[in-house]
């Protein structure tokens, strides 16, 4: 599969001397749904800023679908759609005008622009708000407006910088299905998010950036495969006075009817239920204590933090 994005030895040092990127290499394949994760200030937004040409790189190379950032910036820009973290549209313009105007910047004739604007605003549930000044839209609607605007020139690579921040769960799920649909249509998607459940659910590959370096770049499956121990929370039908003895499964009682159990990947979960059944402990429901990706993310970032501290 050909490369949608190729980054080599990318560095960025800001005017105040802060080194935001320290020579990162990153490849995203065409058609991928890629998660770029990292704590605040790790370099995610700087990377996206360089891709969208809003930040000047210090050194290194970037190419999108073979278009080099330095030599073919116009072709590169045509293949990218960017949904930034902050709202960056004219708050006094109408929703429809914002999308159609953006199309004009890409040289799309007005007739085609209006048809596409209707299509994307309808798909994103904003058509009823087409004549409303954008400042009066809710936070979730503003985010969807930026997605419609980013899609208007039909880019091959869509970059979303925390698109679901501050969006309620119902709307977030509808955005997930919209993005999944786009990806199935062949659009490569790069997503940064703080909701790790979102990244785990949507993305096939993942890069974790911290302190300006890529600390992990692999497939979601391989990354999750590194998780050796998961913590489950079990709701019990009958109260217990103390935590049961479960061989090979360290556990603790959170309260009389809630048990927390650590499950080693090799041990599996079937034997745990066998032991619980033998002790007449009935389980009504089971859930992960934390998101699996979140556990890995925290451990990777903490590991990198100790390296940086050394």
């Amino acid at each position, binding site marked *: 599969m050909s490369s949608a994005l190729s980054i080599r030895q990318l560095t960025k040092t800001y005017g105040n001397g802060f080194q935001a990127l320290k020579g990162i290499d990153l490849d995203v394949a065409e058609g991928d749904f890629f998660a770029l994760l990292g704590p605040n200030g790790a370099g995610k937004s700087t990377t996206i800023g360089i891709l*969208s040409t809003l930040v000047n790189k210090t050194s290194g190379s970037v190419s999108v679908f073979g278009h080099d950032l330095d030599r073919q910036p116009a072709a590169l820009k045509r293949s990218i759609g960017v949904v930034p973290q902050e709202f960056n549209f004219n708050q006094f313009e109408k929703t429809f005008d914002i999308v159609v105007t953006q199309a004009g910047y890409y040289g799309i004739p007005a007739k085609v622009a209006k048809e596409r604007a209707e299509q994307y605003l309808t798909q994103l549930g904003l058509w009823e708000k087409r004549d409303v000044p954008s400042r009066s839209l809710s936070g979730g609607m503003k985010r969807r407006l930026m997605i419609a605007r980013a899609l208007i020139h039909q880019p091959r690579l869509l970059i979303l910088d925390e698109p679901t921040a501050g969006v309620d769960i119902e709307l977030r799920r509808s955005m997930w299905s919209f993005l999944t649909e786009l990806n199935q249509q062949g659009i490569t998607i790069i997503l940064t998010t703080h909701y790790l459940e979102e990244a785990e659910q949507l993305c096939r590959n993942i890069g974790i950036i911290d302190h300006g370096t890529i600390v992990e770049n692999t497939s979601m499956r391989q990354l999750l495969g590194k998780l050796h121990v998961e913590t489950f929370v079990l709701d019990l039908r009958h109260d217990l006075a103390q935590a049961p003895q479960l061989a090979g499964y360290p556990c603790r009682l959170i309260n009389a009817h809630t048990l927390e159990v650590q499950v080693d990947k090799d041990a599996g979960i079937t034997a745990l239920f066998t032991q619980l059944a033998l002790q007449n402990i009935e389980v009504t429901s089971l859930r992960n204590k934390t998101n699996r990706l979140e556990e890995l993310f925290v451990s990777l970032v903490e590991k990198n933090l100790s390296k940086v501290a050394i």
Partner: protein
Amino acid sequence: MSSELRANLVALNTIVYREVRRFTRIWPQTLLPPAITMVLYFVIFGNLIGRQIGDMGGFSYMEYIVPGLIMMSVITNSYGNVVSSFFGSKFQRSIEELMVSPVSPHTILMGYTLGGVLRGLAVGVIVTLLSLFFTHLQVHHLGITVLVVLLTATIFSLLGFINAVFARNFDDISIIPTFVLTPLTYLGGVFYSINLLPPFWQTVSLANPVLHMVNSFRYGILGVSDIRIGVAITFMLIATAVLYFGCVRLLVSGRGMRS
């Protein structure tokens, strides 16, 4: 026509349309105030005080100041349109919509400049029509009149663009109009002929670019001028070219827009 050129023409049309839509949407802030201000100038300076002053350059005082007042409104509105629109885009970060798109720096600059020129011309036409209630206007040389008003509006639109690029807050976009533009305009022969000044101040006045613009325009309308028209137009052409390429360089560097 290449697809690149066609795309940039569509983009140029989009930017100009957006600029015109902006200043017509907020017409009570953009088109009405200069009309009211100029009517006050016509009534107070032209009618009340002008009657006491008598003729100037062979014309009534009202006739003499009308071209200067038209030019003054073109200058302030061309400048004001670009500086407020471009700085507003920077402030709201909507300038990023343009920066991420493949629009060339030339197209961006031409779009904003044309927006400024069109607002300057719109206000100029309004002020000209209002002036007809107070005096009779003739056009001595149509070609020079049109050329000078276009060059002046372009130069001040480009200057407004530079101001907006360097501005970091709203104070920065009012400093130049208040402390530079207004004094230059008032001392630029709008209300008087520099022949009334002592020789030293006549020479000093010649260093004021606005004097050349106002007098060239007055020549186009009335056929009288304190300066040499050929020199003034050459200066304006050179200033337009220098400012244009300076602005393109600012856009390419991303100053005030890219980190």
